[in-house]
């Protein structure tokens, strides 16, 4: 109510109505502020802010790109590593197979040689035995005949003598 009454008052001391000199100074100040800010003071700050935003965005983009490249590189290395591992395993398997084949071959060859040598030895042994037997037989026959002739004064007939010797040899042979 007071304010309304005051507003109705005329004169320079009215607290409600705007004073001319204050409007003038306010207008000068505000328009100067608006123009100088918009044309001179504001653009560099705005530009710096935008530049910084762009710079940070650019750095983020570059980092993302670098990360993607690194991931790609890693994937490629990993695939190469896996390939190398498979290759190595394959080579080892192959070597193992070859070694196994060589081993088997060598064993087979040795087995064959061994068998041959064994057969040879057995054959040699049999031949030697045969020879020794024949020798022994002839010597024994001579010895037996001589001994018999000396012991028994009378000589035996040929057929009976041969039979006697054979019987003796058989006995000797079965006992060895």
């Amino acid at each position: 109510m007071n304010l309304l009454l005051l507003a109705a008052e005329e004169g320079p001391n009215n607290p409600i109505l705007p004073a001319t000199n204050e409007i003038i100074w306010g207008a000068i100040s505000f328009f100067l502020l608006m123009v100088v800010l918009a044309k001179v003071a504001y653009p560099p700050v705005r530009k710096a802010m935008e530049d910084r935003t762009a710079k940070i965005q650019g750095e983020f983009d570059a980092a993302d790109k670098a990360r993607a490249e690194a991931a790609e590189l890693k994937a490629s290395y990993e695939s190469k590593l896996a390939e190398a591992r498979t290759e190595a395993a394959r080579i080892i398997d192959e070597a193992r197979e070859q070694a196994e084949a060589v081993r088997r071959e060598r064993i087979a060859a040795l087995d064959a040689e061994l068998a041959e040598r064994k057969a040879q030895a057995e054959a040699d042994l049999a031949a030697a035995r045969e020879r020794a037997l024949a020798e022994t037989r002839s010597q024994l026959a001579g010895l037996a005949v001589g001994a018999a002739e000396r012991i028994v004064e009378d000589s035996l007939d040929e057929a009976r003598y041969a039979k006697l010797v054979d019987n003796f040899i058989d006995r000797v042979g079965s006992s060895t």
Partner: protein
Amino acid sequence: MIFGLEFPPIEKLVEWPSFFGGDAWYGLNKIGLSALIAMVLTIAIYLAAGSKYKKRLVPTGIQTVAESGIEFIDSGIIDQTIGPEGRSWNPFLLSLFFFVLITNLFEVVPGWQMPGNARMAFPALLAILVWFIFLVTGIRYQGAGYFKNALFPPGVPWPLYFLVTPIEFVSTFLVRPFSLAVRLFANMLAGHILLVTFVVLSEALWIKQWYAVFLPLPFIMLVLLTGFEIMVSFLQAYIFTILAGVYIGSSMHAEH
């Protein structure tokens, strides 16, 4: 005289003699000087901030103030009222915000203690400027259709236009600048009177009488209200600027 208190008449609280020029139209008083200081200070902040970027791009000190002002107008006002396409309004709204804020803050500057906007001159000037700008913007963006859209909002049954159109006319073209100016002016004047009241109370109790023990009560209130008025200064500057944004935004986009 109320209970022995000498409360000065309101015109004494807001009238300031000119430093020069007397009662002439160019008389410069405390109010006019607060406007000049607001202008110089704002320009100085932005010039100082702008000159520092050559050395480093990371903001420090004054650059933070300048950048938060711009950021605040961008995200707090333009994005909310006009939309991101209205970023070119930033310098104007920024000027408006800093001008109102600094002239308001003179309310609590020791030795000054007078908000520039507790006088009708600046609020009226700025409100009329905003009114003019949103009218021109409306015509620029929508042509004559701006008045049609503003006075005959689409989607209203035609008989209602008899009611709606006068209301829209009064609220958009007459009340807007008036309410914008009065809101700022009345809030700052009320705050100023409130502070003066507690100053007068505190001063009256500064005596050699037993009731001087009550002196801390109005003084504590005075301190608290000074803090409150700082908040009001920011709030009123924000409200004035965001309403300017709302009006400009409503002129740029036809209402749906």
